[in-house]
Each structure stands twice: as structure tokens, then as C-alpha cells.
């Protein structure tokens, strides 16, 4: 199949002047250039459930207001998660299967098998490990010299945590980052070609082979709290290694779910505080604000900009008639800025009331399984940062990821000031 997928090109649409029926918020460059806000503001105001008849991703509905998004997310009998939850369609080459793409009953069975990896008891065991690693990473940073926070802290910390969750060979942990990036790196998924299709296939085959080998090595071993042990221990998933696309899919789900989301929230917090010095001052005055701040960071960053569904039947939303088989995209990034639900939604306020009331983890049966683990990592990172540094100063522009799905940072130059 040699046909290249269509990509967005040419100048960005004018958010105000473009005719409403042509407004296309799926352009990944909107997020890369941080230009997305006025497009979604306009849709929330003028056309909250918005149909676009043609785009590089085909026709799709955009759901942009908080309460409408909750409606879609919680009505899984009407809005299916199959075949995929990103706006693009899977190509033939890499059609993996995992429970984020499934509906009940199979979804429930598989999620239940994997969920113990983030059970509260397991998180309690992980906390001192995370704290020790965060401390070590932060202690090794140069004070006074410029460096890239994304590489030295955000990626490093989350990768180490992921390696722990998988009991993955520690020295190879950067492969997890690579595979995570490959999983979402195509135009079909993200709106831009970030690697060649062949690189992607080869890389993901390596991922599958590596984990298949780990699976074999772990058979008959004492079951631990790592993901592979859990899959082997549950009767519903103990043969998953024989379903390679399902095995790879579930591995990637946890690698992606646990990787760039947390990574980008760690970076996002630094950026948000720098853009809002009064909030940073509040934090210095009272590190007890950290737990609430963590929720606010996750809301402000919205590490996954959207989630997509497929209407299983004709249905109505926001006064619009959605047809069976229509693609329906919940724009979490927009709902999180909906000031009809969240007061002063565009502002970063570390002690805002009801900070936990945001869309970044989704809602309903697919709500992010790792949400408490993410919060715990962020809380610990900030506790350890505040012990060591008075100011993590951003000294240059961030480079953002070109994607309409992963809302994140390639790099962020910073300079540290000691406590």
C-alpha cells in the first residue's frame, strides 16, 4: 500500500475568519504551535457539537464542552471504543488490539486482569522507590547551567517508573520510551509522520519480541506485582502471548498510558509555574498545596488532547443528529477550558477548589486506570523539587510535539536555582 495518508499542510486556518463548517481542529500543528485555544473557544461558543465533513481523518464530530464530553464518555453502550480511540484509522500494517479499544464484556475482563498493577497496595510499595529515584535524578542535575528538563527529568523519571512496573531490564529502559513514541508516531494516529512506517513496524516488532522473551523467562517464576506476572496469573489473560497483536496492544497501552502522559505533566508543571509567577510564589510559601497543584497541572496540561468513539446507533447530542458509524471525538483539551463548568478555566490556579474535577483522565468505564499512580509520581517529584530548588527557571521556548493526540513537549530549557 503505497498511498501516503493526507496530512495538514499550508498555512494554519484563521480561527475566526474560516467558515464554521470548514473549521478543522484536528490539525496537529495547532498543538505544536500552541495555537489551539481560539479554535476550541469558537466551537464551544458557536457549535459545541461540530461536524466536519472532510479532513485528512475523514468526517468527524467534535465534542468540545465539558458536560457533553462526560455524556459521551459515560454512554459506552452508544459510543463504542472500537476499533480505535484516536482520530485516525489504523492501517493494515499494525492493527493491535487492547482493552482501551474494546467494549464490555471483553474490556472489563482484560482491564480487571491488569488493574492490580496500580492497586493502592502496590502504589504504597512503589512510593519509596519513586521517591528515591526522583531524589537521585534531581541530585544529579547541574545547578546554574542550562539543560533540557524533558530529557534529564521528565523522560528519565517516568521511564524508570515504567521499567519498574514491567520489571523491565533497567539498563534497557530507554527502549520503553522509544516504543511508546513509535506507537503514536504516524499520520493516521497523530496527524504527522514522525518516523517512517518501516521504522515503526521494525521497532514495534522488536518490542513484541522482547516482551515475548520476558514472558517465557517468567513462566513458572514466583508471581510478582509486575505486569507480565499479572497477565500470567489471570485465567483470562494467561495465554495472551499467543495473541501477538493483543499482547503487543496491551503492552503498548500501558507503555503509552504510563509514559508520555506523566512525562508531559512533569514538564507542563514547570512551564505553568513559570508562566504564572504568583502561583509559584504561593507554592514556595506552602508546599502543602502540592496535591491540589498536581490535579491542576494535569488539567492545565491535558496530556491526551482527545479520545475518539464510534456511534453504534443514531443518537442525539447538543441538538445534533449523530448517525450510526459516525466518528465522534471528545476534545478533553477543550472541555478542560470550559468556563461554564470550570471557573476561570484558562487560568492556572494551584489551589483552586474542586481541582480534581477535570477531564484529563476521562470518565466512565475507560477512565484512566493509572490516574493515582500519575498523581503520586507528580506529587513526589514536586515534593523533592521543593526540598532542593527554589526556582526551576525556564530559560527558553519549549518545543512541542506535533500531534493532535499526545499534547506534550520535545524539550524545555531550564536553569536551576538552589533552595
Amino acid at each position, binding site marked *: 500500500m503505497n498511498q501516503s495518508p493526507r496530512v495538514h499542510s499550508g498555512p494554519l486556518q484563521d480561527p475566526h475568519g474560516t467558515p464554521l463548517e470548514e473549521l478543522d481542529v484536528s490539525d496537529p500543528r495547532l498543538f505544536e504551535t500552541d495555537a489551539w485555544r481560539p479554535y476550541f473557544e469558537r466551537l464551544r461558543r458557536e457549535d459545541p457539537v461540530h461536524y466536519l465533513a472532510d479532513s485528512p481523518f475523514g468526517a468527524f464530530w467534535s465534542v468540545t464542552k465539558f458536560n457533553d464530553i462526560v455524556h459521551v464518555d*459515560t454512554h*459506552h453502550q452508544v459510543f463504542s471504543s472500537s476499533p480505535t480511540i484516536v482520530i485516525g484509522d489504523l492501517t493494515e500494517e499494525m492493527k493491535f488490539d487492547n482493552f482501551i479499544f474494546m467494549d464490555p464484556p471483553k474490556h472489563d475482563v482484560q482491564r480487571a486482569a491488569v488493574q492490580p498493577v496500580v492497586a*493502592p497496595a502496590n502504589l504504597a510499595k512503589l512510593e519509596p522507590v519513586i521517591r528515591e529515584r526522583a531524589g537521585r535524578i534531581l541530585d544529579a542535575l547541574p545547578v546554574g547551567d542550562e539543560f533540557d528538563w524533558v530529557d534529564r527529568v521528565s523522560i528519565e523519571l517516568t521511564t524508570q517508573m515504567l521499567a519498574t512496573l514491567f520489571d523491565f531490564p533497567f539498563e534497557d529502559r530507554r527502549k520503553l520510551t522509544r516504543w511508546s513514541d513509535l506507537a503514536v508516531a504516524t499520520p493516521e494516529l497523530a496527524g504527522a509522520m514522525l518516523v517512517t512506517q518501516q521504522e515503526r513496524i521494525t521497532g514495534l516488532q522488536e518490542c513484541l519480541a522482547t516482551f515475548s522473551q520476558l514472558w517465557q523467562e517468567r513462566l513458572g517464576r514466583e508471581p510478582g506485582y509486575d505486569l507480565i506476572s499479572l497477565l500470567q496469573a489471570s485465567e483470562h489473560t494467561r495465554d495472551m502471548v499467543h495473541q501477538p497483536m493483543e499482547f503487543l496492544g496491551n503492552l503498548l497501552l500501558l507503555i503509552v498510558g504510563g509514559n508520555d502522559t506523566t512525562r508531559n505533566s512533569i514538564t507542563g508543571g514547570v512551564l505553568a509555574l513559570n508562566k504564572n509567577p504568583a502561583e509559584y510564589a504561593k507554592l514556595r510559601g506552602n508546599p502543602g498545596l502540592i496535591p491540589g497543584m498536581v490535579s491542576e497541572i494535569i488539567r492545565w496540561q491535558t496530556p491526551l488532547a482527545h479520545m475518539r468513539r464510534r456511534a453504534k446507533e443514531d443518537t442525539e447530542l447538543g441538538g445534533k443528529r449523530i448517525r450510526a458509524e459516525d466518528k465522534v471525538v471528545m476534545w478533553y483539551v477543550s472541555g478542560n477550558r470550559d468556563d461554564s463548568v470550570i471557573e476561570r478555566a484558562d487560568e492556572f490556579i494551584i489551589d483552586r477548589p474542586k481541582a480534581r474535577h477535570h477531564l484529563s483522565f476521562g*470518565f466512565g*468505564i475507560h*477512565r484512566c486506570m493509572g490516574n493515582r499512580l500519575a498523581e503520586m509520581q507528580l506529587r513526589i517529584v514536586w515534593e523533592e523539587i521543593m526540598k532542593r530548588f527554589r526556582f526551576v527557571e525556564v530559560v527558553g521556548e519549549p518545543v512541542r510535539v506535533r500531534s493532535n493526540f499526545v499534547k506534550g513537549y520535545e524539550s524545555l530549557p531550564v536553569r536551576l536555582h538552589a533552595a
Partner: protein
Amino acid sequence: MVKVTFIEFSGEVRPVEAPAGNTLMQAAMDNMVPGIDADCGGSCACGTCHVIVDPAWFARTGSGDEMEEAMLAMRPDRCPTSRLACQITLSDELDGLVVRLPEHQM
């Protein structure tokens, strides 16, 4: 006013009063009862207001609808009398209600 007793996982007893018509979740939030997170603000969408109704009261509260069941099913600590507090509306019939809080919300 409807009297409700929340029993924290630690065993600490928290008697509160709330107006009929409020949800059990609201009663907890308004009275600063710890252990209920209510991340979705009461939309039966997050499962973080999970409570265990005292068996003596379960006949009066009943069980939840399909949507609530789907959320409760995801909870590994789910009990036969588990409910989501945001889906229980307080009434005079529930005056004296007793519920226990789970160790964690997820």
C-alpha cells in the same frame, strides 16, 4: 434534615446531617468527611465516591442502575452492598443511614 453516619476505614465514626434531596456524596463533601473524592462532581462517571452501605440499610437504598453497576464493577474492593454515594438521594426514609468508607478510592 436527614441523619447519616459515615464510618471511616479507620473505624472513626462521623455523624452528619444533610437536607433531604441532597445526595449522600454532597453530604460527605459539605461535612468534610474524608475518604470520598468525587472527581466527576457526582455524574456516576468516576467511581471515587464508593461507599459500602450497612447491610441493615441496603433494602432501603437498594442497588444502583446499569451505569452505576458498570462503574462499581471496576472496583476490586466492591462488596454486595457497595453503592456510589452520588447516586443515593437522601430522604426521610433514609434517616439514620449508616455507610462505611473503603480504604481507598481509585
